[in-house]
């Protein structure tokens, strides 16, 4: 009797419209998320539970997580399992185990002591690195008091509709990091894009907006590769150190699916002269040029740069001779570049 013969004959009905079905599935997911039936941290919690049991090599490169696992692995159990499905083997194993336990315990104590000391040394090293990072990072209070709130994405009203248009049709969910108060997520939602955001500061988002408390790099690092349709990066990109900026670009690239998009909204460093001097001096990192982000994102011909709105600068008065007007234009470009840019990298499907 064949497999197909055993299955009750069913009315095959109309062929399934797969494109429409996938759209319906995406809409259903967006609806469940917006309604709060699928809490923002549910999927993250699943990942955390898995990471708790996975071998240390398989849980990514989060330092704290790895160190925690190393610490829990320092104890060596000398009592080997004695189970067996074969008769008498468990008894034999128990006898052998009892005979050699004194020797194993002696060695295990030394190895455990060595492992504990090594992990302790790593902990101390981590604390020193934390202290260095703390010293080099800009204090939040300084950021808040600095003019123009440099933690925030620049020219938000200008970029929101442009970025929304850029990520429509992305092959999966869209992540905005850092999402701040959800300014971009609201636009993305209006454009029918299934999006959520992360921000290191806990905030109460407006209704219908999914906003999780998490740092951009940490959140991206915990996601499986190819999980997202698009990633929009802003805020953090202007204050991270170069190492973190490079890691952020590389991680964002790997987390988008084939055909995915990565967008960086950044401050143009050429406009840094207009920024608050306190914010500049206390800043841990520095903004990168748009060309640098384009290079780091590595989208090749699929990458393009959008310039932000130009600030009021030098304008020739009526009757200015053409030579002088041209010089004024050059000066204007040098002295008053746009404060922001967006780099859009589209990867091949």
């Amino acid at each position: 009797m064949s497999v197909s013969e055993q299955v009750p004959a069913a009315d095959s009905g109309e062929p399934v419209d797969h494109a429409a079905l996938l759209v319906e599935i995406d809409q259903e997911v967006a609806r469940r998320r917006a309604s709060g039936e699928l809490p923002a941290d549910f999927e993250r919690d699943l990942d955390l539970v898995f990471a708790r049991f996975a071998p240390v090599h398989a849980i990514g490169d989060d330092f704290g997580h790895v160190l925690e696992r190393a610490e829990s692995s320092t104890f060596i159990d000398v009592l080997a399992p004695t189970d067996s499905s074969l008769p008498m083997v468990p008894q034999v194993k128990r006898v052998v185990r009892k005979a050699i336990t004194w020797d194993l315990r002696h060695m295990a104590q030394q190895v455990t002591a060595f492992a504990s000391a090594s992990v302790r040394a790593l902990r101390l090293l981590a604390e020193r690195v934390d202290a260095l990072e703390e010293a080099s990072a800009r204090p939040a209070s300084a950021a808040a008091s600095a003019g123009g709130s440099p933690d925030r994405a620049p020219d938000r009203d200008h970029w929101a509709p442009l970025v929304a248009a850029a990520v429509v049709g992305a092959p999966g969910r869209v992540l905005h990091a850092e999402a701040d108060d959800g300014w971009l997520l609201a636009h993305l939602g209006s454009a029918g894009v299934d999006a959520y955001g992360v921000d290191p500061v806990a905030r109460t988002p407006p209704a219908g907006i999914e906003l999780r408390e998490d740092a951009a790099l940490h959140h991206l690092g915990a996601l499986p590769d190819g999980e997202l349709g698009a990633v929009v990066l802003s805020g953090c990109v202007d204050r991270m150190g170069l190492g973190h900026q490079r890691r952020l670009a590389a991680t964002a690239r790997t987390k988008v699916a084939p055909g995915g998009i990565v967008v960086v909204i950044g401050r143009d460093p050429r406009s840094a002269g207009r920024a608050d001097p306190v914010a500049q001096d206390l800043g841990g990192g520095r903004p990168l040029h748009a060309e640098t982000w384009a290079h780091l994102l590595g989208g090749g011909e699929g990458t393009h740069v959008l310039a932000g709105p130009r600030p009021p600068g030098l304008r020739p008065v009526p009757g200015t001779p053409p030579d002088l007007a041209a010089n004024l234009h050059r000066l204007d470009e040098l002295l008053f570049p746009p404060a922001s840019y967006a780099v859009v990298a589209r990867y091949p499907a």
Partner: protein
Amino acid sequence: MVAVHQFLPTFAPRDAIGTHARHARAILRDMGVESEIYADGAPDGGWRRGARPYRTFGWRRSPRDRTWLLYQLSTGSAVAEYLQARPEPKIVNYHNVTTAALFTPWEPHVGVELQEGRRQLAELAPACELGVAVSAYNEAELRAVGVVRTAVAPVLVDLDAGAPDAEVVDRLGAAKARGGSDWLFVGRLAPHKCQHDVVRAFAAYRRLYDPAARLRLVGGVGSHAYATTLERFVHGLGLAGAVELAGSVSQGALRAHYRAADVFVCLSEHEGFCVPVIEAMGAGVPVVAFGAAAVPETVRDAGVVLRAKDPATVAAAVARVLGDGAARASLAAAGRRRAGDFSLARSSARFRAVMQGLLDGA
């Protein structure tokens, strides 16, 4: 006398490649071609099923024989080095080699073997008279490493083999009578099969749609570290009563699992073909799968192929399929048709034609 002898790293008569090799041997013998199976290892009674240690191959060969060596390639092995040194013309039957990066964090030694497999494929390519791929996806890889003459012939699998185990049918039927839908995935517990993603999606499905749902993961242990983690993950989520790690089962028990399943969920990151998808479709079970590697080619439009596999999306896809009787029936019918494309008769005819082409041209 014409001979085409097969070589495998491991000949396990019940696994997909072992079954394929047995059918291939039968087809070749039916064509009047001498054919034996040589392997480095033969667990689960492989030696009793006629396999021979590969190093004994040269002992009784006559140099006048027209002999081809057909290598069933799926991982790195000393067998490939042995074949490389042999003077006979080679055929590679390519089942794909799992990407080492997926395995290395869990089983570093397996990762090394897999890297070896890809290196050995590249080294065998110039000496390879024919590359037989079980999917177009695999064929593209063969061409990429320089195999000039290639053909696609699907995995040889008998979808109608054996009857469902009555005892298992009763046990699964009793569970179904208590309500709730039954998810199924079949495949070795291994990191690239991503059973943990199935569990994640299943947890979301129970939360959002069906708190009484059950998941059965059928398949032996491919990675001890991964299997242990998966078991602890299931317990950590409080799903021990809803998720069954059934292990390796008999053919009859496997048929019973397909019969009891409401949906087959495959979220593998890497499959060179994916026989269980075909088996599920043949049993009329709708398939929801992540579109990685050869899976979209195997499923085509006979199942739901997803671009993402976050738990919410997979759960919504399963809910959509199970909640819509018309879509479910349509997918089941399309699945049976698609499985028909891979019936043993059709696949055997294709394999025979490919081999005949080689022998006629020699």
